[in-house]
């Protein structure tokens, strides 16, 4: 690990709220750290624990589920 640990975060966002919120943050030009990658899903109800664990296993440092 490098000295400056920069976590790689995978975010799963609900199409109807959190993803729309992320769009709105863009429209409002709100600035946030660029180390998050967003994946659109239709509902956070679609997430199960297996999915989150697999994402960690693939190498993510953090998983954000927002919806």
């Amino acid at each position, binding site marked *: 690990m490098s000295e400056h640990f920069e976590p*790689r975060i*995978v975010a799963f966002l609900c*199409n109807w709220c959190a*993803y*729309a919120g*992320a*769009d709105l*943050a*863009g*429209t409002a*030009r*709100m*600035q*946030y750290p*660029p*180390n998050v*990658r*967003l*994946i*659109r*899903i*239709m*509902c956070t*109800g*679609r*997430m*199960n624990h*297996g*999915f989150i664990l*697999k*994402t960690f296993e*693939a*190498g*993510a440092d953090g998983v954000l589920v927002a919806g």
Partner: protein
Amino acid sequence: MEQKPRSEKQAKGSEELKAGSEKQEAGNELSSCSPPPGKARTGVFVCHCGSNIAGLLDCEALAEYAAALPNVVYAKDNLYTCSASGIAQIQAAIREHGLTRVVVASCSPRTHMPLFKSACAEAGLNQYLFEMANIRDQCSWVHVQERDAARQKAMDLIRMAVAKAALLEPLEDIESSLVRKAMVLGAGVAGLSAASALADMGVEVLLVERETELGGLVRRLNRIGPSNEPAAEVLAMLLREVESASHVRLFPGTDLVGVSGVVGNYEISLKSKGGEETEETVGAIIVATGAVPFIPEGLFGFDGRKVITQIDLEERLRNGSPLEVKNIVMIQCVGARGPGRSYCSRICCLTAVKNALLIKSRDPNARVHILYRDIQMYGAENEKLLRDSRGAGVKFDIFDPAFPPVVKEGSVEFYQPLTGMTIETECDLAVLSTPLVAPEGSAATANLMRLPVDGNNFFMEAHAKLRPLDFATDGIFLAGTARFPATVREAVAQGLGAASRANTMLSKDRLVFSALVSYVTDRCDGCGLCLDVCPYHAITMEEFERDGRVFKKVRTDPILCKGCGVCEATCPKRGVLVHGFTPSQIRAQVDALLEALP
């Protein structure tokens, strides 16, 4: 709700979908996401969006980067991909390069996905083979100070979209027929307005009213504020419109006893008080079941004679006989804005002020005293009414709910917080302003149609501001005091609005739904875990026989399904998946992102 295909085409469509997807997903594990690349030929279009993206990111370099990604056979940057020339470039590339997938890296799919999808379809590419990377709203706009990190993120987002695109499957929109009929439930002013508006637009209407007489609460009113029109005239006009419309069938004294089906084809069962049953299919339903005034049993000495409610007063004024009282005290917020019923009923202040003015205009020597907590007289006309009433000599006093007024024989005693004094005012008639409450049976009606109600049994709209007259369930709409206390004028406006909302749907030749919905795979063994979790009740259990044995399997209704994927998350064996968001497709995005880890 009952599951059956609305049309042959739909039945055929869903069979095909099912067959296709079972092939695709068979043996696909979450952990082993080996993309079965049917040699996808992907084209990537990186949009400058003027300077919105290109101001921060080098779009030409991003297109070059995209060109080197797996399956990408063509990549190009455009000034505005959504412009006519941008669309033409996509369509030309589909033809010239034989593209089988298109990825646009630009703005949000929430706004521009439909445009690009239809552009693909026009060029002969199945619209579901399109994917977007959101590098504007979620990248260039939000990382203005971090050009390098933003470039890295844009590259990742494009790579993820390209990876997902390779796994997209061609799908067909789901179509269904619809019946150009509507049922309006409740024949108060909201329901009558809705029915008459729908009839005017050529829709056949079934107007169902539980009471034997049409008109609802307005039948009991005297005059309608703030305009002071006689309620009877307003109602008579609405009734004439509805009764003379050839498209409206009236069902007075009739209850709704059953609803099944989906938008465009709701099968309803009606039963009249006389036991007569009617079965009909309607395309849309408008719920306008109204509200009733709260009866303040045990409050402020309510007896219906000398202590009455505003609706009692309306009935007395309506009769036209003199009130034969000199001193009238009105008490606001009786049974409202307190424990048990915390809401403000919105219309009682207007009612009290309207009636106070009417009493003063009949008998200027009458003394009207209104005891209130807060005056709710929204709107310019209502405010004028309030000023007029003060000018006419109506007295107003605030009371503190902690020390409510006490109704005595011949007087009302109340504590005046401003002076700290307890005041006794003469009173021959006390009028209690009570809130509108949901009628008995509204929860059962809601249950019948699986519609949500709030803690007070008022129906809940899909969104208070953005979709105030819709339910979350397609094809069912809401108007009037069934939603929340409203004035007559507001209820009429809502009735007209709900009719318009219903007709936007009913005026179509056929209904088209997104194919990004759930489907059942071979792996389903009928355990039924997904049945209870489906928020749209789109899943049912089916039994079938094979080789003399009985098997179970679930069936999803592609029209009821909204593609949320809760079933997919619940199923322990990949028996039910959602098109466009399958485990392998999402997994491809995650893998594409993390494969570039140092």
